[in-house]
């Protein structure tokens, strides 16, 4: 809420978030204007892909990105103990505390691009594919949430986690383009090890060409494993924090 104290800055920040998001679609437009585009993707399909990424990033910005900054800051300033004393689950309380309003603008922009390109391609709205899309978008959000929980937890264990934050943003860049442009090794890593491809490629593909229950399960399992692993790491980190006595 502190952001609202500076109304002008709040407005500019919202504009800047939207402008940064539009760079992806603009680059897509320029690439399709000057080349035959990416193999396996028409212009509208790749716009749907970019819109999906913006949507997932918007969800993650609303309630995940700020978490790690907040926790790392609180640890550094020695203010973390107060959160452990609250009568709520610490992680949920922190998530509620670190809600970011700019994400809402991002979600709206992402949805608008997705709906517009879905209509251009001629995808029917109320099908099982749409349901699979929604599930995968939520799963994509959970990938980012898990990554931020891991970064936060590392703040307790290692001293400096800002570097991890940078590495995370770099790996996220892989999600900006469809999986099929990369080699097999990278594809495997982005699906099973660090399932960041679920924040753009898999939902877009499910909506465009449909998905079987088996494929959906194979995509969702690594996300579930990643999320559970992050929660376990968080628990471990919190325990080590209290035993060390701050």
């Amino acid at each position: 809420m502190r952001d609202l104290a500076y109304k002008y800055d709040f407005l500019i920040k919202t504009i800047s978030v939207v402008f940064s998001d539009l760079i992806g679609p603009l680059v897509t437009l320029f690439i399709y204007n000057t080349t035959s585009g990416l193999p396996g993707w028409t212009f509208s399909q790749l716009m749907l892909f970019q819109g999906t990424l913006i949507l997932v990033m918007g969800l993650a910005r609303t309630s995940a990105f700020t978490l790690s900054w907040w926790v790392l800051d609180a640890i550094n300033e020695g203010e973390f103990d107060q959160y452990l004393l609250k009568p709520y689950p610490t992680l949920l309380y922190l998530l509620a505390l670190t809600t970011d309003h700019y994400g809402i603008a991002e979600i709206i922009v992402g949805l608008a691009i997705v709906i517009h390109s879905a209509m251009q391609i001629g995808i029917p709205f109320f099908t099982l594919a749409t349901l699979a899309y929604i599930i995968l978008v939520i799963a994509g959000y959970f990938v980012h949430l898990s990554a931020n929980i891991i970064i936060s937890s590392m703040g307790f264990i290692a001293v400096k986690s800002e570097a991890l934050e940078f590495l995370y943003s770099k790996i996220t860049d892989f999600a900006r383009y469809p999986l099929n442009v990369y080699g097999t090794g990278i594809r495997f890593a982005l699906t099973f090890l660090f399932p960041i491809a679920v924040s753009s490629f898999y939902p877009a593909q499910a909506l465009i060409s449909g998905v079987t229950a088996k494929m959906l399960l194979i995509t969702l399992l690594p996300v579930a494993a990643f999320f559970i692993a992050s929660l376990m790491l968080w628990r471990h980190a919190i325990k080590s924090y209290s035993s060390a006595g701050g």
Partner: protein
Amino acid sequence: MNLQGNWAFAKAGIKVWSAYRFEGIVMMLSTPISLIIYYFLWKSIYAYMGTATVGGFAFPEMVNYYILSMIVGFVTWSEVDKWMENDLIWGRMITGLLKPISFITWYMSFEIGINLMNILWQMIPVFLIGFVFFGLRTTTAFNTIAFLISIVFAFFIYFGMTYCLGLTAFWLKRIAGLRRLRRATLGFFSGSFIPLTLFPAWSQTIFHYLPFEYTKFVPITIYLGTITKAMIIKSLAIQLLWIAIIYFIAHLIWKRAIKRYASVGL
């Protein structure tokens, strides 16, 4: 000029960088990730299209473009608007005014110190990775020297624009949003994401009259030798002209800002 003073503040920048050297090293290790992404992206685009050039670049040149884009980025990097915003908000600006060197050179020396470390720890590794793994080619002596001069000019243009934005904090206090917008705008219009030759023709004409392309795209084309010698000389002259314009504007804004600062006493 007070070189001893400048060097003292450059050393302060080096120390700040060193305090975050762990970050620096992780960054050094993760920067090639961007190269890998662009390499695969363009490889599939060129393969799919079947023609030799896109926007005047053949595939190896396109890869060279992104390596050089990163290299130029390390030299021009500037977050002076962030330091200025924080110094104003935390009331540290007054110490800057009491330094024995001028306000702008104080910040500039500090940033040069940080960038010297960026060059050492990030730019040189990217150069080597580029040569060994991504086929970065060498260029003629003339182009190399012109490239080095143009990236120094590019730094002054980039720094000057960022500094002007930092000065607006005297009025607006919080400029985090503007800074974000600045980073996105400078990145996009200088050609960090895709070469400017892929932009629509009308916008390319407009870019010639704006300073953005001189902070990245022009130095890259100088290295790649896609423009003639005469054009290179002309580009360097235009860069100098932009430096003069931007620092004149910065001086004007500064005069108003400092009046405001003294009267309001933020």
